[in-house]
């Protein structure tokens, strides 16, 4: 009953192996923290799971309804918050009440103004609404905590909790381990494209965030 199953997945950029022989499976309701050093292949793996690139080798079965929050925020600066959500809602197979989501991320009052006038935090909140609406089965978040202040972080955490409660699967890559630990049920640690650890969160990580790098990272 896996939501996502990867069998011996590899991804090459030309002859450069960005990911090598990954095998894993995610179940519904899992929250996976994708950890690894710069260039380990986290973004590449998320793109693979999103179906944006296809694996060079191996097979990857993807859930039906995927939602992605990448390095960019994925909303249009020229449109208003409401128009943005409406547009993305139109592309979804399910009906979504845009107003509810505007309310949820607290943008209802300014929903008519074009995004250009929003502050960075407001844009990020809109991006969160765009990502979480429509009850996606698989949520892919690439460094979602980057440059978020305490309030935005709290909003993201509550959305995550909600999604996990309705048995969605969440994969989030991050370098900010303490924030990720709040919900993560499993850790997937990559080192230079290889899977080094996949399993439940080790207790050691709660107090010591670089523990996983030191333990499973390359020695050299």
């Amino acid at each position: 009953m896996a939501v996502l199953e990867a069998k011996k997945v590899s991804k090459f950029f030309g002859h450069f192996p960005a990911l090598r022989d990954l095998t894993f499976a995610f179940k519904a309701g899992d929250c996976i923290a994708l950890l690894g050093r710069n260039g380990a292949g986290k973004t590449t793996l998320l793109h693979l799971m999103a179906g944006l690139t296809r694996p060079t080798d191996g097979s990857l079965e993807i859930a039906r309804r995927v939602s992605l929050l990448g390095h960019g925020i994925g909303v249009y600066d020229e449109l208003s918050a409401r128009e943005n959500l409406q547009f993305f809602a139109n592309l979804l197979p399910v009906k979504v009440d845009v107003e509810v989501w505007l309310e949820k991320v607290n943008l209802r009052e300014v929903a008519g103004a074009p995004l250009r006038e929003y502050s960075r935090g407001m844009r990020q909140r809109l991006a969160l609404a765009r990502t979480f609406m429509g009850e996606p089965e698989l949520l892919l978040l690439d460094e979602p905590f980057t440059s978020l202040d305490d309030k935005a972080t709290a909003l993201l955490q509550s959305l995550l909790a909600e999604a996990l409660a309705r048995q969605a699967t969440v994969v989030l890559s991050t370098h900010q381990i303490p924030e990720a630990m709040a919900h993560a049920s499993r850790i997937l640690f990559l080192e230079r494209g290889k899977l080094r650890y996949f399993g439940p969160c080790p207790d050691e990580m709660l107090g010591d965030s670089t523990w996983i790098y030191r333990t499973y990272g390359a020695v050299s």
Partner: protein
Amino acid sequence: MFDKILFGVGAASGLYLVRNLYTMLMVLPDEAAQGMIYRIMFFHIPSWWTCFICFFIAGAASGYSIAKKNFRADSLAVAATEVGLAFTFVGLATGMIWAKIIWGIWWTWDARLTWAFITALTYAAYLMMRNMIPDPNERMRVSGALNVFSFASVVICYKAIDWWRTQHPGAVMSFRTGGGNIDPAMEGMTYQNLFAFLMLCLVLVTVRLRQEESLRTLEGMRRLAFTRQRIAVLG
């Protein structure tokens, strides 16, 4: 072993060209209307055909590479395009020299000449475009699609003499006209030179193909080395 064969074919094509040159200059008589200079057609016509064949191979290889995600086919496409472009320039140069002597001008804007120029530019743009895309996968996809598009200009160039009234002479070779427009000895000579050109072309494409393949491997290895080096920082 393979190197030796390659070298052999290369040497053979060189010898063949020399022999052809001898026949051309010593055996064949001057042409009635054009005199001495008509002999340039033994280079002009085969070089255009060679370049068309190269572009055809490049287009087919590109189509295959994007359909099957095959990097070797992609390399073949570059190799064939580069060699084809070289022959394009030979065709342009010989044509222009010929034009200067027969017409008195280097260039005129008729459909055939214009599209020959356009063809050269499109394939040059293809090579330029490749250099600008760092991601090898994207490079293969995008430039492959572009190469398929580009073949349209080759088709137009080839058919230009049929579609428009051009100043450039129409078809003379018997397979297009049904014969009678060219002396069989000259036609034979053209085919012989075409054969020599194709041999040369084969060698060049093979050499470029192998070079391209090793470049690709090298690129991957350098990336790997860079990642290793990165990991090594600060113990």
